[in-house]
């Protein structure tokens, strides 16, 4: 991808200029502490008034290998992955080869010569920086990461007090000496960064936006976790599985403060059963898992359907089948959550595309589960949970807390037949009457039945009346652009911002984006959006699972499918090129 050697191997001689936005990629081995660099950088630059976006890709191993983090620093809001690398900071040999197809002749490699493979020397714009030397001057190789973070903040003339602030917060517990040494290391890097700019080696011109300083940085994992807590989650059971474990860890880290139950259990089967039991007794429970774990849960999903037992499931997708690529991304489990569980019963599938959607939907998931007494599945993926960026603090005033629990008065019937298919749900211990839930076909009280007429009524209650109630109350997709546009680009879940930026880049009035974060069941009114349109669905899987769903649910004809299934997220460039390819 990159051009021929330009004879620019001598130190300090190349002149690179970045305006408006810089895409920085840090690459190194697992266990090398690159995350510290990333965190200092993103926080300090955000505090300095820059918009930041970060996403990582990593190998399924504890030490070694190559992991990279992309950080976009911009004068305007950025929320999407780009393939382009402006500044590449390698922390070990092999990084350049790993990202070779993302290196161009405008890419600056910022780092130490020893971290650049022989074959790249003389071919890439290498700006050598003596990070090891500076770290040793501070006292130890251990300070290399902080030095590197300071260096990049320096390139932006960022607010050094923000670096100090972050170091104090992060290393404060390790004592004053560690804090001071890290600040010293960061300052040495910072001064070098400023110098590189002043000498004209790397010129960075990105305007600041004051309001960004007060915004928050939130990851997909955190947005789901804090959203769930806002929705009243007070019980989470789980078995660790990448990339879903972050949400469970988040809940565990906040369990004492929020006074909730978080339990790591023997397997996913136990996790969802426990959560079902907790809901039955009135808790607001969630499980967090990935595709394989969810597959184990599917019998219990069916019990939730039959017993009309609410449950919230967070499923962070990774590529399958089987173990697949444990730390990579795919939108390949839509069909799994759509069809999992034997027998017919309704469910709700949500797939947030932004941190705001993840926050509000994860909170709302508990109201939905409580109201409709069905499984509510929050579908994310590795790309989404490992992404973060700055955003205005979500408004808690917009979150409603609904409680749909009734008192069990004498004569109470758990499965009372109603017009909308929703029976009043009581919990044991609230009221004098008992509550009977049942995974066998049952009468209105919850006792076993073999009666044909009652079976028919109960089947209809769940799979027709209740499903229809959910369907007609389902929110519509979000339209970006004109309703009159000829081309409708469809995204669902995590691809939202990548597709949004690609569509913006196209800059055509006849192209609009229709985004689905409420994935199933679809409101029949959704169909009107598609009339007379050329429909292009963008999905991170091999078969176009959502495109099939549109056909099945709304009889929508999909004209083009833009699919990616190499375990990596879409980049803005890829979607842009693909859209250009199908739009005349």
């Amino acid at each position, binding site marked *: 991808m990159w051009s021929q050697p330009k004879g620019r191997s001598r130190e300090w001689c190349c002149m690179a200029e970045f305006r408006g936005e810089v895409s920085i990629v840090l690459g190194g081995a697992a266990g090398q502490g690159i995350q510290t660099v990333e965190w200092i950088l993103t926080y300090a630059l955000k505090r300095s008034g820059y918009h930041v976006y970060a996403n990582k890709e990593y190998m399924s191993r504890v030490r070694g290998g190559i992991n990279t983090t992309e950080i976009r620093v911009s004068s305007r809001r950025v929320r999407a992955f780009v393939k382009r690398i402006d500044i590449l900071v390698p922390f070990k040999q092999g990084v350049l080869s790993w990202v070779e197809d993302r290196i161009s002749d405008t890419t600056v490699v910022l780092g130490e010569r020893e971290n650049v493979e022989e074959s790249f020397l003389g071919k890439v714009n290498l700006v050598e920086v003596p990070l090891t030397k500076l770290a040793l001057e501070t006292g130890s190789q251990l300070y290399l990461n902080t030095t590197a973070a300071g260096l990049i903040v320096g390139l932006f003339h960022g607010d050094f007090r923000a670096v100090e602030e972050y170091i104090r917060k992060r290393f404060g517990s390790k004592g004053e000496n560690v804090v001071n040494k890290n600040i010293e290391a960061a300052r040495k890097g910072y001064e070098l960064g400023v110098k590189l700019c002043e000498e004209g080696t790397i010129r960075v011109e990105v305007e600041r936006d004051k309001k960004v300083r007060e915004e*928050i940085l939130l990851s997909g994992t955190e947005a789901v976790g804090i959203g769930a807590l806002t929705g009243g989650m007070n019980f989470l059971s789980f078995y660790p599985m990448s990339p879903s474990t972050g949400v469970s860890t988040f809940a565990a880290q906040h*369990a004492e403060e929020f006074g909730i139950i978080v339990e790591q259990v023997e397997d996913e089967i136990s996790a969802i059963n*426990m959560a079902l039991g907790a809901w039955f007794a009135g808790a607001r429970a969630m499980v967090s898992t990935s595709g394989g774990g969810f597959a184990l849960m599917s019998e*219990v999903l069916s019990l939730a359907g039959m017993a009309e037992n609410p449950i919230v499931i967070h499923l962070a997708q990774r590529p399958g089948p089987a173990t697949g690529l444990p730390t990579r991304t795919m939108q390949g489990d839509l069909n799994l959550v759509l069809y999992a569980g034997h027998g017919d019963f309704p469910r709700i599938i949500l797939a947030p595309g932004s941190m705001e959607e993840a926050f509000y939907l994860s909170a709302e998931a508990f109201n939905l589960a409580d109201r409709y007494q069905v499984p509510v599945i929050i579908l994310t993926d590795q790309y989404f949970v490992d992404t973060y960026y700055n955003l205005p603090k979500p408004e808690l005033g917009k979150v409603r807390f609904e409680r749909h629990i009734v008192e069990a008065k004498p004569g109470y019937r758990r499965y009372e037949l109603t017009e909308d298919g929703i029976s009043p749900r009581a919990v044991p211990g609230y*009221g004098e009457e008992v509550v*009977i839930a049942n995974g066998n076909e*049952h009468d209105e009280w919850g006792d076993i039945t073999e009666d044909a007429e009652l079976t028919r009524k109960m089947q209809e209650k769940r799979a027709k009346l209740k499903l229809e109630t959910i369907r007609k109350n389902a929110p519509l997709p979000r339209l970006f652009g004109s309703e009159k546009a000829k081309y409708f680009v469809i995204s669902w879940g995590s691809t939202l911002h990548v597709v949004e930026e690609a569509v913006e880049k196209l800059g055509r009035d006849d192209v609009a984006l229709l985004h689905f974060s409420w994935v199933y069941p679809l409101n029949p009114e959704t169909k009107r959006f598609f009339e007379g349109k050329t429909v292009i669905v963008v999905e991170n899987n091999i078969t176009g699972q959502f495109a099939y769903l549109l056909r099945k649910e709304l009889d929508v004809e999909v004209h083009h499918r833009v699919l990616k299934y190499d375990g990596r997220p879409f980049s803005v460039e890829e979607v842009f090129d693909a859209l250009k390819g199908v739009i005349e």
Partner: protein
Amino acid sequence: MNLPTGREAFEPKRPGSRDIAWCPGCGNFGIRNILISALAELGLRPSEVAIVSGIGQAAKMPHYINANGYHTLHGRAIPIATGVKAANPELTVIAEGGDGDMYAEGGNHLLHAIRRNPDITVLIHDNQIYGLTKGQASPTTMVGMKTPTQPWGVFEEPFNPVALAVAMNASFVARTFMGYFKESVEIIKKAIRHRGLAIVDILHPCVSFNRVNTYAWYREHTYWIDDGPFDREEAFRRAIETDPLPLGIFYVNERPTFEESVPAYRTDKRPLWKREPKLDLVEKFFESKRL
């Protein structure tokens, strides 16, 4: 309105509870009788009790006793009961099922429930055979017994739940035979009152599919331990006796329960259904994300 009290309170009056699906002479009738007496003698009310069952003839119990009930899936009564108790520790929670339910399909849950120690009572209707699926061997079927699916005779070593529970340092371990009504009521009362996981293996005949382990067989092949509970080593020695099988409370080990160990009830004793989201803490979290 005057609600019935005592044993009568636990007799269900619902239309679907009248037609009991057990075979005439089934040991499950006796266990139902024992359980109702135990609950009534403990002075509990139906709304305070939750019976969570798996699948099988034993697991139909929630329909034949008036208490909160959840008839779930094969093998899953224990984790569901754990969730119920964790969400509302004020409830008396019983997990109930047969030997296939608890020792085969649900075996892993039993192991980990012993470790986790929720304050629930696990009642296993152990008739050493599969009833509802019509006569296949269960984990506790005796070696040599011929069944339709083991026509050559069972060769697997029978599962010994009492030895397993003692080996794992379970909180309360007992075995009884439902033919001994008074003794069984006392054991189950103690199991329910015990703070922590209480396991009671209840031997009972299957009149339809087990021609070996009959009422008479159990009387002849069991004896009461009158000096229990024991220390762990002695309990284990007794637990591995197989003929005659010892009956009684083998082992009691007081240790913190699951509900006592989780952060949810440290300062707030209310069951989870009475609680609301802590928006002030959410706000605090967002503040921390500015830096």
